[in-house]
């Protein structure tokens, strides 16, 4: 069956290559830079006879005025620019800045001539004045855009990392599961103490793994064992209603992965699938390797859409998805196929080993 809903587009925060120029911090940064520019222009050796302070005053007035027009213009244009592809948007913003500088310079020059204030250059040098200002503005504008871009990317990276950590915490096992398991064990102690003992061991392993989930990587083999232990406990609880089929021999067990990527899918399959069906059903976990991609599928029967309880579905899936984005960038995906009576999750991962240190493709991957 064809996948109905492919969704690996979980947004890593917002498209953050251009800041909000209407916000006070950005505006302030613009004005500080503008003042530096005014200072540099005034300090530069010149044939002009006027003393330093009046020159700094008029230069500041001019440059600050230009900076404000830039800020207001970019603020208003931002929604449209963000809809473009980043590099086109950046170029458009840059072109806008140069155009504003050119037009602004030309306007100020004309005004100055008209009012005969003598703040700019002699009348014959209109083109020179405009060109000079654009040439001064060009590197400064480029540096400024680049600075804001890097800053926003860095912030997005920090946000994504915090979110990934938070979500790893959230991915920890549902409290429901703990208490249900305790209840199962309490029942088993009376009738089958041996099984009760095994259940306590499995439960301990699960919680040890879940409590350490925030940090680091784990081998695929360990993750699969964890899912197996989880299902073993659920099998005790649900009895004959839960049947499990494993076909994961083809997977490389030693591959390093972020923790708790598969267990939540299996937990979901029980929670929203088998457990919600009076007659139960079979969960199938399959793994294949296609070239450099691993494909792990978890599928389960589930009540048809009209008969589901509306609460809480999809939380675990969103969670796994955003952690995939954080750790693998575009190299991994979680595909969900909700074909009425059967629910299938397909996890696609790179088969190459991951480095131990942090995410492979940070959100702030440079595009320049």
């Amino acid at each position, binding site marked *: 069956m064809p996948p109905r809903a492919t969704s690996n587009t979980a947004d890593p925060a917002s498209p953050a290559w251009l800041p909000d120029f209407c916000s006070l911090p950005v505006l302030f940064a613009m004005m500080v830079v503008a003042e530096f520019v005014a200072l540099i222009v005034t300090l530069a050796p010149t044939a002009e006879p006027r003393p330093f302070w009046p020159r700094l005053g008029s230069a500041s007035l001019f440059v600050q005025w230009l900076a404000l027009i830039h800020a207001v213009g970019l603020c208003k244009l931002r929604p449209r620019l963000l809809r473009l592809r980043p590099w086109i948007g950046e170029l458009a913003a840059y072109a806008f800045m140069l155009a504003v500088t050119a037009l602004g310079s030309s306007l100020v020059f004309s005004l100055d001539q008209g009012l005969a204030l003598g703040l700019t250059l002699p009348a014959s040098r209109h083109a020179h004045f405009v060109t000079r200002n654009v040439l001064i503005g060009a590197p400064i504008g480029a540096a400024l855009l680049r600075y804001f871009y890097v800053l926003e990317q860095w912030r997005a990276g920090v946000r994504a990392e915090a979110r990934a950590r938070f979500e790893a915490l959230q991915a920890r096992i549902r*409290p*429901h599961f*703990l*208490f*249900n398991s*305790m*209840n*199962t064990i*309490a*029942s*088993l102690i*009376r*009738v089958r103490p041996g099984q009760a003992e095994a259940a306590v061991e499995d439960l301990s392993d699960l919680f040890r793994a879940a409590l350490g989930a925030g940090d680091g990587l784990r081998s695929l083999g360990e993750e699969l064992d964890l899912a197996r232990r989880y299902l073993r406990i659920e099998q*005790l*609880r*649900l*009895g004959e*209603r839960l049947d499990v089929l494993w076909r994961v021999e083809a997977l490389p067990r030693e591959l390093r992965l972020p923790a708790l990527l598969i267990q939540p899918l299996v937990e979901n399959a029980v929670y929203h699938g088998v*457990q*919600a*069906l*009076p007659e139960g059903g079979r969960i199938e976990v399959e793994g294949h390797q296609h070239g450099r991609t691993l494909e792990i599928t978890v599928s389960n029967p589930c*009540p*048809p*859409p*009209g*008969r*589901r*309880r*509306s*609460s809480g579905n999809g939380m675990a899936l969103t969670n796994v998805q955003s952690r995939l984005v954080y750790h693998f960038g575009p190299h991994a995906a979680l595909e969900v196929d909700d074909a009425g009576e059967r629910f299938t999750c397909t996890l696609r991962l790179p088969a190459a080993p991951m480095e131990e240190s942090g995410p492979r493709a940070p959100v702030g991957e440079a595009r320049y």
Partner: protein
Amino acid sequence: MAKMRVLVADDEPLARERLAALLHEAGADVVGTASNGEQAVRESERLQPDLAVLDIRMPGLDGLDAARELGRLAKPPAIVFCTAYDEYAVRAFEANAVDYLMKPVRLERLRQAIERAARLAPARLGQVAQSLAPGRQRTHLCARVRGNLVLVPVGDVLYMLAEDKYVVVHHTKGQVLIEDALKSIEDEFGERFVRIHRNCLVARDRLAGLVRLGDGRILVRLTGCEDELEVSRRNLPAVRKLVRTL
């Protein structure tokens, strides 16, 4: 004093076993067990227990919905709920003075629950269900056909017509009578059904279009159903708007 006759409903075999054993120790007589809400209602009708201990989370008809149906029996049993971990449920129970047990159940606590087991009116249980989650909806409508319980999945309902004291539910596999009021169904399911007439609710996802008759009356067409239903003048603007967005 005669032993209290108890029905245990839980979808987990081990949980049922343990609860039955504890009930036995507490001096009660477990007359029957059920593995889902539907079975619990059927078994209660047949066995007429004094008390039903219902797990909240069961497939199909869950504990709360089953309790509501039990409240409508001629001789309703007292009800005690059982849950592993439901902050919301516990708050709702406390607010409505409904007794509940937390899993794993303790013997002393079970004894207490048996002693003060009280019969609750279905309206009260409805309140619990509502305060549990404001948007909570039943997944099935319960009807009686010749004395037998019939569950109609809400997703299978085509439309509902109010007639006298009953509501006739037309669904994909036939029609049944239920005792709920049309208004309360409308309130409970909100978005899911649209009122097209004083006496008629239609499943929103079954709406196929409108038909104008020669005499100016307007009918609704439904997918998967031959019937055409009249739209009242009062409900027409809303229905028309909805059909346009389809």
